């Protein structure tokens, strides 16, 4: 990759890093995900700066002849894991909302009955 291509990659990851940092600082990313996203942002930043020359040797090490493919592979696996984590979390939230809705309805009925 040419020097300005490398610069583009680095700048993009830097923007992501700053963005994540801002969101974590302003607590718009909850505690559960803050650590994960910080780790991800740092990893991206490292990979696009000092880790960059090693990407090719890593690709060779895992036996993928075309380095960008290796990069895509890792990226997609990472994204899939992240989405899976989100689905687990959504399911949990859904369960909690359901229980809360039911309990709220039952308590309200009890409350109204005692008022009469």
């Amino acid at each position, binding site marked *: 990759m040419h020097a300005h291509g490398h610069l583009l990659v680095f700048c993009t990851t830097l923007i992501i890093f700053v963005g994540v940092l801002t969101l974590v600082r302003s607590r718009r990313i909850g505690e559960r995900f803050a650590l994960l996203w910080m780790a991800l942002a740092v990893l991206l930043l490292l990979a696009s700066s000092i880790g960059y020359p090693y990407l090719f040797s890593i690709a060779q090490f895992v036996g993928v002849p075309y380095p960008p493919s290796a990069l895509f592979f890792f990226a997609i696996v990472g994204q899939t894991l992240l989405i899976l984590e989100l689905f687990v979390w959504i399911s949990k939230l859904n369960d909690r909302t359901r229980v809360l*809705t039911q309990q709220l*309805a039952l308590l309200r009925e009890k409350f109204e009955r005692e008022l009469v």
Partner: protein
Amino acid sequence: MPRVLVIVPAYNEAGSLPQVLGELTTLYPQYDVVVINDASRDSTAEVVRSTGVRLVTLPCNLGIGGAMQTGFSLARDEGYDIAVQVDGDGQHPASQVDVLVEIICRTGCDIAIGSRFITGEGYQSTALRRLGIRVFSATLSAFTHTRITDPTSGFRALSRRAIHLLAREYAEDYPEVEAIVVAHRAGLCIREVPVQMSARSAGISSIRALHSIGYIFKVSLSIVMCSIRQRTVLP
């Protein structure tokens, strides 16, 4: 005498509820009745209030599963011995509620399901739905080795053990069929009783004809998923 709670889930059933509730309260003065209003957008709540029947209104729509589970939680918390589900659309014969209750009392079984296919009398549903029910029946017997002719029937009575189990675990979208798997895996006894149902007297079914094929697929899949899930064990 066992304490019985009749749970009537209702979503936009203002048209059919007066008759359903009227029959239930005149036939069974000894049973308690509660309507779970699943955030209806019509006058369901007012209609129920005017009849004097106990009413629990959910603040947002949870679907039939979430609504029934609310009723099971109520039955569990207030110590009822038997809970009976009677749909608010008028398909379930109020006159046969005591048949279900009696089966639970007499046989000691945990779930009594009213089946419209044992004698083949009364409303038999549409051909497509009967096909779907056949598929579920076959899938169920393959995965749980139980023979249930009418697994989608919501007309059922539950023992105290079943109430406790289903208050804890009840599916959201297609709960009737899944509940059979959950109950079977928890070691509960399930029994079918012949009943005669009628076509709904008013309102619209939550399962539309166009979606029936998708419904058949999803429910069959949910039976499989439910069979591989970790089982819920009663304390």
